[in-house]
């Protein structure tokens, strides 16, 4: 099965000023053959919506490690869907302050239109998801 490289937009959540997680994710995604635009940390919702409209990425990856990820992520996904963006959106990292995944918060994110919620450090699952998405894209393009 041939896999196509995806245009991916990567962003930190609105209140999260951490950088190194985004640098790591960019390298991780590029190593899998994808093209990455990295918006950096502290991306407010309006900027995220604007950038999605301008760049037309095939996937948006939101990353958060400051404990406000569930809250900030929910705002971001709702803003994107409200603006009519239908692209796949995934989020991952340390999303809550409790240090472990919260199923209720996760359900809220999925309900709001987030395609996947990845646990902290689960790059394996992210990699598998990318493979599926790239394969689907190939078929769709054929």
């Amino acid at each position: 099965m041939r896999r196509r490289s995806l245009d991916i937009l990567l962003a930190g959540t609105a209140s999260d000023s951490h950088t190194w997680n985004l640098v790591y994710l960019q390298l991780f995604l590029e190593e899998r053959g994808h093209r990455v635009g990295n918006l950096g940390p502290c991306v407010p919702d309006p900027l995220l919506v604007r950038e999605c409209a301008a760049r037309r990425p095939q996937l948006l990856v939101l990353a958060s490690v400051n404990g406000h990820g569930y809250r900030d992520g929910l705002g971001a996904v709702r803003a994107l869907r409200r603006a009519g963006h239908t692209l796949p959106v995934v989020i991952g990292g340390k999303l809550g302050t409790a240090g472990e995944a919260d199923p209720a918060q996760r359900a809220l994110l999925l309900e709001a239109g987030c395609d996947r919620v990845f646990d902290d450090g689960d790059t394996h699952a992210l990699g598998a998801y990318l493979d599926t998405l790239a394969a689907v894209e190939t078929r769709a393009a054929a």
Partner: protein
Amino acid sequence: MTAAAALAPSPPATGGPDPRPGSFGAFVARCAAAGQLVVQPRMGFADPERMRDGLRRTKAAAATAAGTLTIDSYTRVGDRAAARAALAEGAPLNGYPIAAHPAARTRALLAGVADAGFPVQVRHGSARPEAIIRALTAAGLDATEGGPVSYCLPYDRTPLAESVAHWARGCELLATLAPAPRTAHLETFGGCMLGQLAPPGLLVALSLLEGLFFVRHGIRSVSLSYAQQTHPGQDAEALRALRRLAEEFLPAGVDRHLVLYTYMGVYPRTAHGATRLLEDSARLAVRAGAERLIVKTAAEAHRIPTVQENVRALETAAAAAARTTPEQADGGDSEVYQEARRFVEAVLDLGDDLGRALRTAFARGLLDVPYCLHPDNAGRSRSFLDPGGRLRWSDTGAMPVAPYATSSRRTPLTADGLLGALLTTSSRYDSDPPAPEGADMEHTPPPLGTHLASPTLRSAMLVQQEALYAVREFLRGQGFTELLPPLVGPVTDPGGRGAKALDVDYYGQPYKLMTSAILYKQASLRGFPKLFYIAPNVRVEPPETAGTGRHLVEFHQIDVELAGASREDAQAVAAGLLTHVVEHVWSAVPEVLRELGREEMDFAELLSGGKFDSCTHAEAVARLAGHGHTQSPDAEIDWAGEKVLSLAADRPFFIDDYPKGSRGFYDREDPERPGVLRNFDLIAHGGYGELASGSEREADYAALVTRMRESGENPAKYAWYLELAREGIASSAGFGMGLQRLVRFLTGLDALWQVSAYPKLPGVIAP
């Protein structure tokens, strides 16, 4: 008087106490002149009472400290409404909201705490610092930190142009609102940037340029920062380069000093790793001449540290600094200096308006912070850790420096590679010290105060006291005389197994602390044919022996020597002595021993009478091979092997005939079997290992000189001893029994430190 006031240099005598909150730069200069590193926490609490308490306890720390008010994130990003709302709700803030509190409240917080001997600095992180500067000057403060680049690029989406404009106004505000005789002080944050993976040349240049920016905007007292990176040599080069560039580029009349930040990247997660990294940063600061250090705490990797943790970090850093001497170095044309200078010159070439020059430099990629994602950063530079641990460039984009010659540009950094580089320092410090050999001691001593108060130590000391009583009773009964040993001498026992002697300066002569008094024992035979010492010894053992449970740097030996005796005579005394001590402690303090978990049955075989068994070194090696343990036939039995033999026995036994080369020159070589020594070790049963070492002694002048040469010793150093030998030293045999090892064997405790009131483990800095 507080500890800090006692330790800090007195303010200059200007006739009466100085009523102003002391000038920050002048305080640091006075401390530097007195040879004291100023240490400072990052500490901030929303509640004024808690903040005041934190400052008071910082001031009272056993350190030369400056105080810190760290500002909360809402105030940092200019959201004063959110800061006020959080205060009103009682919601936790991660710092002191200086702009949300009225100035009078902050003044009250500082009253009686901040003074000339304890200046307080405001630390924040804002790209728009004006409100914070107004608030701090209104509260009577005049020192803060930041910078147009360093408080913008790493944390914020504020355009660099805006940050430059805000910081220009901020500098002018600070200079205006803290007029003479107050002295506004600003510290650059440019020596930190993303905390890690920025090669030092760039950090030094940014720090210098921000300092110059402050000066151009009216600030007359600055400190230039640098954050500890990955390599102590490269870090020292960086601090020296920063000092030299400051001399070259800052106007002469500007007060300045260097401030080092303890590592700002991923911090070690273990307490020992965190402490050692902090201590290394304090040593770096002193060695390379930084005047101030911003510390990190052991709690750093997990959460916001408490006041107590901050104070402990300050005291740990201050203690490490006090044990370090500055290194004289010219700061020459190091690689860091040359690189930093190229950056500085490239920016200054862009015109006289430094703010504009900085913006242009970033826009053109002349300055390009690796891995920084800010939209105004070019993002074309990349760095890597070279195999020696230095940070270097792999890609330099448009910067005026070259990539490192051997950088692996063909193998781009991978995600895993980045993770590895980010975690290098924390992994290194968390894994050191290396897992101890034969680790039967999983824990190390608690702080000395706790250790001295422990019931276990009390029990062990009761047993030790009875053991010493029994030693003296037995030896005196056998006709021995107790002498008090010397502590220092021109030479000492050259010893073995990697232990070294401590050097002391004796009226300008290089003397040694006694590793053992063996040479003096032999000399003393002239007047005392049967003698003993309870001798204190200091041996700087290799750090890897810290975990054996059987090594202390400071310990005592029951040191016995008898003239005209054979090895067997000495062994009989050693066996008799051990037996008597065991009998005595079980009659004197049986309940103490039982409380410690010992049973009389443990010593039944020992007390059953009869000679202790002996085997030769060669037999011991063969026995170990039978246990599957490889042991060199030409060397000391290693610690693990000794333990195997000790565990396999049910009563103490001797190992005889160690090979020449494994022991000192004073152990007599067997005349019938060259290469074999007439010596022995006494090994305890039950896993406690070696208790005593002894031998027939070499006393013949020519043989001693030959043996010294064979073991690489310079006979000239042993002049006094050889002179006595030439006149004639009596033949003798003797042994040294480790007192702490004996008490550990009697008490059954796990580690030697548990039977020493003031334990010093190899490689561990302890009081």
